């Protein structure tokens, strides 16, 4: 119950101001010409005595107050956005029911700017200098809204590219993956420079000679550098994940692998790690056999 000290609740009623059917307005010859041309899908301006082209046409020259000439010239249909304001939440009276821009558009051949809507899809598409064209309604009546909105000119297309291949790993990588399937890491030693590479390869990239000596390398190593990845990747269990260069013990060149079993921000250079293999029954000829490398708990190595 309101106490007697409370002000009385206000009385409220809905009130609508409306002229049923709308006002009928005469256009006069100048505006009428513009709207008539619009109905035919054309945009025209009117020339002033000083030679300027007013779009939309007015009956007088705003600079002098003098009557304009009777010369109409076709302008546009393209134009350039001079300035714009972005409506992210359209109101019921607005020309579009999705986000759009209001813009001042200088139609080609005009000396003044037209106010209209630009259906650009996204605010990031809007900029001063944007080239736009009218999108006409199919049913036109001779009204400024015969142009539903302006839309950006075509300046780019999206080309779909897709083609499929069957790939093979090559002989050297196949040999390495055979080892992975067995749970061993197969590398090789160059007979010339004596560097040990893993994965196994058939030639030494430094010396350019064939390699014949296979070596099985241990699945322990040291992180030489790493990156924290924040974009999801189907090969990684979660985001963020760490991919690292790991120099396996006894090798001369690091290989790239995931690091797991540790928070991303705790990974560091010099950290000792060991491969975490999936159970034997799940193994295939794939690097997925190594889930990731996890810290061994040994002291860090000075790099």
């Amino acid at each position, binding site marked *: 119950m309101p106490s007697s000290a409370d*002000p009385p609740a*206000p*009385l409220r009623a809905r*009130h*609508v*101001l409306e002229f049923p059917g709308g*006002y009928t*307005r005469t*256009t006069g010859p100048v*505006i009428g010409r513009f*709207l008539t041309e619009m109905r035919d899908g054309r945009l025209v301006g009117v020339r002033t005595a000083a030679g300027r082209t*007013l*779009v*939309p046409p*007015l009956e007088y020259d*705003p600079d002098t107050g003098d009557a304009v000439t009777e010369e109409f010239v076709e302008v546009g249909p393209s134009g350039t956005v*001079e*300035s*714009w*304001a*972005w*409506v*992210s939440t359209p*109101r019921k*009276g*607005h*020309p579009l029911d999705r986000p759009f821009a*209001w*813009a*001042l*558009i200088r139609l080609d051949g005009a000396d*003044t*700017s*037209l*106010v*209209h*809507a630009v259906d650009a899809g996204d*605010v990031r598409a809007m900029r001063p200098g944007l080239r736009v064209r009218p999108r006409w309604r199919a049913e036109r009546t001779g*009204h*400024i*809204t015969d142009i539903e909105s302006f839309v950006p000119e075509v300046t780019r297309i999206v080309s779909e590219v897709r083609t499929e291949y069957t790939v093979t790993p090559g002989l050297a990588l196949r040999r390495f993956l055979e080892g992975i399937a067995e749970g061993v890491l197969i590398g090789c030693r160059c007979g010339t420079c004596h560097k040990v590479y893993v994965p196994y390869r058939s030639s030494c990239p430094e010396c350019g000679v064939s390699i014949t000596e296979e070596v099985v390398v241990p699945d322990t190593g040291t992180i030489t550098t790493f990156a924290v990845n924040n974009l999801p990747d189907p090969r990684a269990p979660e985001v963020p994940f760490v991919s690292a260069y790991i120099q396996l013990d006894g090798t001369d060149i690091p290989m790239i692998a995931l690091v797991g079993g540790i928070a991303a921000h705790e990974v560091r250079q010099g950290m000792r790690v060991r491969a975490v293999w999936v159970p034997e029954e799940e193994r295939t000829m794939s690097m997925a056999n190594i889930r990731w490398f996890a810290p061994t708990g040994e002291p860090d190595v000075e790099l």
Partner: protein
Amino acid sequence: MRETAVVAFAQTRHSAVDEGRSEAELILPPLEEVRAATGLRRFGFTCSGSCDYLAGAPFSFVSALDALGAWPPISESHVEMDAAWALYEAWVRLQHGDVDSALVYGFGKSSLGDLREIMTLQLDPYYLAPLGLDQVSFAALQASATGAERAELDEIVRRSRADGRANPYALDLPDPSGQDAEVAPLRPYDIAPITDGAAAVVLAAGDLARELCERPAWITGIAHRIEPHYLGMRDLARSVSAADAARAAGAGKGDVDVAELHVQFSHEEPILREALGLGEGTRVNPSGGPLAANPVMATGLIRIGEAAARVMDGTANRVLGHATSGPCLQHNLVTVMEA
């Protein structure tokens, strides 16, 4: 030019919501206040400013006459504009020389309808109104054309709202916050608040002014200028008409201590400062201005009244009141007043 001065000014404690008063009930307290301040119950001329579209009723201003006591008949006029233009008409009327006092008042309740869409109805019916171009949208087009810096706009709003909190007649609005745009680049706080309110001013000429007021705010210059209505025919980044009006009113003939500007959107302040030639030494909108209280149709008159009040209370010697009308500062009135 006949010596004419503002000798009294009063306004309502403006409200952000409809407090249930009719327009006549809204205007009565400020009328009583200026009557008490001057001791006058009858005036040589009376002129008011209001907009029927705010209430959505034709001739709604006529019922506001109930607050006047217009019997026996009085000499009265009305402008369908901000009451600053009613003051201009009253000033012109006093120039005739046959009457010495004029009552001017304005009122508006923006809370009744949707101001953004009501302002669409003032636009030209062929090219602009059918697009549904609302008030905030056309203001945002102008803000975009000026390229004003966000930090500058934020500071204008912060200062205006802080001054408004110190003004018992303005709304209590918090410091601006939030990143979201209303119509980009304008944010909700860049827009003057919806406000109900009213204001009244008494003008007096010559010796009557000296009798009625210890320190009249003498109108040494008053002029208004207008630009083409259509937005695409103008350079929206500047206000040529405000500059012309300021020149005609002689604004630049001396230092301006205080300027009260009809800034309904924050970006309008830098446009007007430049057009009016206001320097660092001019205090702008010490009342908080329209960004702190915007009783539409009284807002411009309040600018003149607030500026005049600084002369009448002795805190300023030369002041400027600015009022605007139409979309994007189309029409500007500048009043220069001096001690």
